[in-house]
C-alpha cells in the first residue's frame, strides 16, 4: 500500500516541481524588471533542488538551496536592491544578444533530448542514492593514488576563490583610498510606479 502511495506521490511531486521550474524559467525569460528575473531564477533553483531530492540526491538539493538560492541569489538581489537605478529601470525583453544567447540552450536541449530518446530506461534505478553525504564525501576525498583526485580540484577551486576575494578587496580598497572620490549621487526620486 505504502509503496504505491510513495510512487504516486513521487510522480505528483515531480510533475509539480517540473511545472514550477518551467513556469519560473519562462517568467525569467519574459520579465522586464531585474528583481522579477532574480526571483524567478530563485524559483527555478528551488524547484530544481526538489527534483534533485526526488532523484536520490537530497544532499545536492540542500546544497542547491543553501549555496545558490540562499547565498548567491541573495547577493544578486542585494546588489539589485542597492542599485538605486534598478528600481524603475526596465530593459527590453529581447535584443540582438538574445539571438546569440538562444543558440546554446537550444543546442543543449537538443543534445539532452537526443540522449534521452536513445537511453535505455530499464537500466536506471530510481531508488538508488546518488548525491548523499557519504557517497559524495567518499568520491570527493578519495585520497588513493588510483582515485579520481577530486580533492585536488576542490583545493584548487578554494585557492581560486580566495584569490578572487583578495583581488576584490584590493580593487575596492584602491577605490576607497583615491582622494578624488566622487561625492555620492543624491538619493534618486523615490519614484512612483
Amino acid at each position, binding site marked *: 500500500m505504502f509503496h504505491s502511495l510513495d510512487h504516486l506521490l513521487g510522480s505528483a511531486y515531480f510533475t509539480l516541481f517540473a511545472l514550477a521550474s518551467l513556469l519560473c524559467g519562462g517568467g525569467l525569460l519574459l520579465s522586464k524588471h531585474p*528583481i522579477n528575473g532574480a*526571483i524567478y531564477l*530563485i524559483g527555478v533553483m528551488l524547484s530544481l533542488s526538489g527534483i534533485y531530492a526526488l532523484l536520490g540526491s*537530497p*544532499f545536492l538539493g*540542500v*546544497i542547491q*538551496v*543553501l549555496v545558490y*538560492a*540562499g*547565498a548567491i541569489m*541573495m*547577493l544578486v*538581489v*542585494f546588489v539589485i*536592491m*542597492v542599485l538605486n537605478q534598478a*528600481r524603475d529601470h526596465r530593459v527590453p525583453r529581447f535584443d540582438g544578444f538574445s539571438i546569440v544567447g538562444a543558440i546554446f540552450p537550444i543546442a543543449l536541449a537538443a543534445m539532452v533530448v537526443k540522449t534521452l530518446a536513445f537511453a535505455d530506461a530499464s537500466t536506471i534505478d530510481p531508488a538508488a542514492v546518488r548525491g*548523499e*553525504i*557519504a557517497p559524495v564525501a567518499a568520491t570527493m576525498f578519495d585520497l588513493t593514488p588510483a582515485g579520481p583526485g577530486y580533492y585536488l580540484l576542490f583545493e584548487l577551486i578554494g585557492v581560486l576563490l580566495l584569490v578572487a576575494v583578495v583581488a576584490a578587496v584590493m580593487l575596492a580598497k584602491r577605490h576607497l583610498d583615491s582622494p578624488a572620490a566622487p561625492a555620492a549621487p543624491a*538619493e534618486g526620486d*523615490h*519614484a*512612483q*510606479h
Partner: protein
Amino acid sequence: MDILHWITSHPYQTAGLILPIAIPLILFQVLPLLVLLERRGAAFIQDRVGPSRAYIPLPGLRIRAFGMLYNATDLIKLLFKENFVPPFAYKSFYWLAPAIPVATGLLTPALLPWFSPILYQDGAGVSSLTGTLITTSSGLLLLFALGSLSVYGVVLGSWSSNSKFSLLGGMRASAMMISYEVSMGLSVLGLLLIVGSFNLTDIVEWQGHHTWGMFVQPIGFLLFLVSMFAECNRNPFDVAEGESEIVGGFHTEYAGVKFMMFMTGEYLHVLVASALLATLYAGGYELLPFPVPMLADTSGFVPFLTTVFRPESYLSLDTLWVKAHLGGVVAIMLGITAVLVFVFATLIAGRRRNYAQQDAQDRDMRLREYGIYCSAFTGLGVMLLLGAIACGLFMTTQPLVAAGTLSPQPIYPGWVNAVTAVLQFHIVIGKTLAFAWLFIWVRWTLPRFRYDQIMGLGWKVMLNIALVNLLITAIVAKAIGGGR
C-alpha cells in the same frame, strides 16, 4: 469500520500519519507563551507592572490571566485593522514578503527531533518511528538553508516598500544576517566534526551517549549563541529597526495582518533558534547532561569520536535509562513541576496579601481574582503531586521483547513509548523556553550595538575565533580519535 480497525491495529503508523499535521503546529502553540514571557519578562526587568489591563469581565470579577489576554487583543486589533498598501509600493513583492519568514519558520520544526526514535515490532521485524518528520542525513544543512531563505522576507519587504527607512533597515538587517551566517556555520562545524553526522537525531543521540554539546564545544556554543541572536535580529543586534534612526526598519510600511506576519516570523525564529540551541548544545530530548547511570552497561557503547556511525534504530543510553526507569523519572519530573507550581502559588498568595493591605478602588475584585488563581494553582500542584506518587508507586516498565532477540536493544510496549515521547517532547520544549528566556533577558538588559561594531564583531572577532576553534578541534580529534 475498516479504518477504525486499521488505526487500532497500527498505532505507530497512525501516529506517523498524525505527526506531520501536529508537529508544524507545535511552534504556534508555544508562540503565545513566548509573547507572554516577553511582556512579563520586560516588565520584570524594568520594574514595571506589566500587562494588566485586558480582562474578561465576569460579574464581580475580572480574569486577567497574567496578561495572556493581550495575545487575543493583539490578534483582534491586527486582524481588523485597515489593510493599507502604500500606493508607491511594488505590489507583488510587498504581498509576498511577509509570508516568507512565517513559511520558513513553520517548516523548521519538521527537521528538529522532538522525541527519540521509537522501536516497535512490525510483523517479524523491527521498525522505528523517528521524532523528526524529515529524516535525512543532511538535516542540519537543510535547516541552515531554510534559515538563509528567510532573509528574503526582509530583503523583499524592505525593497518593495519603496521607502528610505525600509530600504535602510532592510539593507542593515540583510547584510548583518548574511555576515553572521558565516560564523554560525563555522561555529557549529566543530561539534559536527566530533559527532560525525549532519543528522539532528544522530547529534542528539550522540549527546545522550556522552555529554551535552555545550560541554564538548563551549567556545562553539557561545559563538553559535551570539550568531543566533544576530540571525533573529534580536537585541543587541536589532539594527534592522532603530526607532531613533530608521523608524521601524524593514517593516515601516507594513500594517495589519502583514505586520503581524512579520512579527510572527520574528518570534518563530526566536523559538526555532532556541530549539536549535537546545538540540545541538543542550542535549535536545535527553534528560541528563551526563548519562552516568548506564555507563556500567557498555554493550552498546559508541566511541567518543567516530566517522562510521552506528546502525539505524539505535537508542541512546539516556533514552534507554529513561525507558527502563520510566515510573521514577516521571515521578521526579512531576514532583519538580509540582514544587514549581507551589512556589508560584505562594508568590500569588503574597501578591494577594499586598493587595489586601492596600486601599485600592477595585480591592475586592482583585482579591477574588487572586483567590481563584491561588486555589487553581494549589489544586494543580496537589494533582501533580498525587500523579507523581502514583507514577512512582505503580508505573513499572517491562520490555515487550528483551534485548538481543529481535534487535540489539529492548522493545517496549506502546504506552511506555508514548509516555517517553511525551516526556521527551516536554524536555525539548522546556529547554527551548529556557533559551528563549535567555533571548528575552539579553534583549531587555543590553543596549543596541552600533552598526560598525556589529560588522567588526562578526567579521574580525567571531569568524577568527570560529576558525581557530575548528582548527584546534580538528587537530585534537585527529590526535585522539585517529581514524580516517
